[in-house]
């Protein structure tokens, strides 16, 4: 487990360069704002209607890793789905790459809007059980080729499998023969093979054991950094998010109660809820999992 933590630290150390690049680019006034969410509100109809997300605003820059933490039911998945366009917001605006994001309907999403990809919470349905995993990863490659035809040499399906720690021959297997962690890595490969500018990872690891969690998070973070993909990493586990995120948002009851650079949120939390979150982590360096507050 400590190996896994070390892995993530290495990744973070490597990422610092790109982080500095981003700051310098920002300093130069280069437009590297990727995603901007303004006053997002999502109400699920019902009796009574559930206000799952309210007054959520944040920004995400190219290549940045943004952590979104909060307890179960705080609205993290709702934010993720709204950003990806998988559900229509009640009000508010989502601007991705300078364009207002349209929710997905029956019409297919135009290829130039496929720069947002997502890895889902539940590994059991993240892959089509009836198709070989290799062909599912090649779907991702196909998207990359369509969106960036000039994109030069792309990795093969086999190389992608190797990059996420599987072997090249695994492409011929069906999803049922893989473990939960392996499936999430395959789903990550599929998403990243599209060369997205934003990858949303909605608690991709919460159903896995602690060391696998750290491994999957580390791989995801490393690969995203390599192709300058921004990462919106969602978890209820602050101790893991802290290891990979540049900035952290803390959600509570559908609202963002705290945001700031990782070190600041970790060392000097302003909000009472964040303080409670932090104090419930057993040791400052451990991989403790939060009790649901």
């Amino acid at each position, binding site marked *: 487990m400590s190996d896994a933590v070390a892995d993530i630290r290495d990744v973070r150390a490597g990422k610092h360069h790109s982080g500095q690049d981003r700051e310098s680019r920002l300093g130069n006034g280069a437009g590297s704002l990727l995603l901007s969410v303004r006053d997002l509100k999502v109400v699920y109809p019902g009796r009574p209607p559930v206000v799952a997300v309210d007054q959520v605003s944040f920004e995400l820059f190219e290549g940045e890793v943004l952590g979104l933490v909060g307890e179960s039911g705080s609205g993290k998945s709702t934010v993720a789905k709204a950003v990806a366009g998988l559900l229509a917001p009640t009000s508010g605006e989502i601007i991705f790459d300078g364009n207002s994001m349209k929710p997905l309907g029956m019409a297919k999403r135009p290829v130039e809007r496929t720069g947002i990809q*997502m890895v889902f919470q539940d590994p059991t349905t993240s892959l089509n059980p009836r198709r070989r995993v290799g062909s599912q990863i090649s779907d991702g490659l196909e998207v990359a080729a369509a969106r960036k035809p000039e994109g030069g040499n792309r990795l093969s399906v086999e190389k992608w499998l190797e990059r996420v720690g599987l072997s090249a021959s695994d492409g011929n297997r069906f999803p049922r023969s893989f473990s939960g962690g392996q499936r999430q890595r395959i789903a990550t490969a599929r998403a990243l093979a599209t060369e997205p500018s934003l990858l949303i990872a909605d608690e991709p690891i919460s159903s896995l054991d602690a060391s696998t969690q750290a491994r999957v998070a580390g791989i995801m973070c490393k690969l995203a950094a390599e192709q300058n993909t921004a990462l919106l990493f969602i978890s209820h586990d602050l101790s893991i998010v802290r290891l990979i995120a540049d900035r952290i948002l803390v959600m509570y009851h559908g609202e963002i109660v705290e945001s700031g650079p990782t070190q600041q949120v970790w060392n000097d939390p302003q909000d009472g809820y964040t303080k409670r979150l932090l104090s419930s982590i057993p040791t400052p360096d451990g991989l403790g999992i939060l009790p649901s507050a």
Partner: protein
Amino acid sequence: MGGKRRRSLWKRIPAQIRTPLGVIAVTVALTWLVVAIFAPYLSPYDPVSQEFAPYLEPNSVNFFGTDDIGRDYFSRVVSGSRISISLSLLLVFMSMIVGSLIGLVAGFFGGWIDEVIMRLTDLFMSFPTVILAMIVAAALGASLFNSVLAALVVSWPVYARLTRSMVLSLRQSNFVSAARLMGHSSGRIMLRDIVPNTISSTLIMASLDIGTATLLLSGLSFLGLGAKPPTPEWGSMISYALHSFDKWWLGLFPGLAIFSVVVAFNIIGDLLRDQLDPEVQRL
């Protein structure tokens, strides 16, 4: 090597079928399928030519006796399997295609399309099956093919419901969301992500339905709404046997044939039903 291969094939058969009852049912069903396929070679005499004395009791030449105009009854029952079983399979196949397509559209597109289709399905299912089929068959005119069409009218809704319920949950699954994010069209998603995941349950449902289809079709023929003489069809043969009730073999053999086909396929279907998702089992 060969032994190992055989064992793995055996293992691939659902566990429920690998029981004495299942094996008997499968044997009977397969026997009937073989008989139906090779009927022309297995029937010793022409099923429609009058070669013998009428009303001969079962004997060593005419195993099942002869009928009122001296046709070999064994040959008629054997040839009848071809008609009854192939029409049942045709009916099941058509119901499966029609019902699944309707259910796919309803479940996938949802909204008012779903509303309308499901109301229609409920309407069809609320009629007593046989009576509705009778009405349709009578309206279309008595013929074998029309009896299949009439039976189709009452058999598709089950498949529509089954498929719709599966599609509703598949549509919400993460791999479908992933496909949408990758810009796949609805058609591609239906073809690659939805349909392949509904096929196995649909096929199980279909195997469950073969017995019922046989019963329904021979019922229509029995009522004079399907096969017409001299076509050897089990339902119409029983119906005809009523005219000479004291000639026991005329009703018994086609009756046993229908009975064994229906029971065998129903047992297979019931055993396979356990393989279905709990949600599907309720349908």
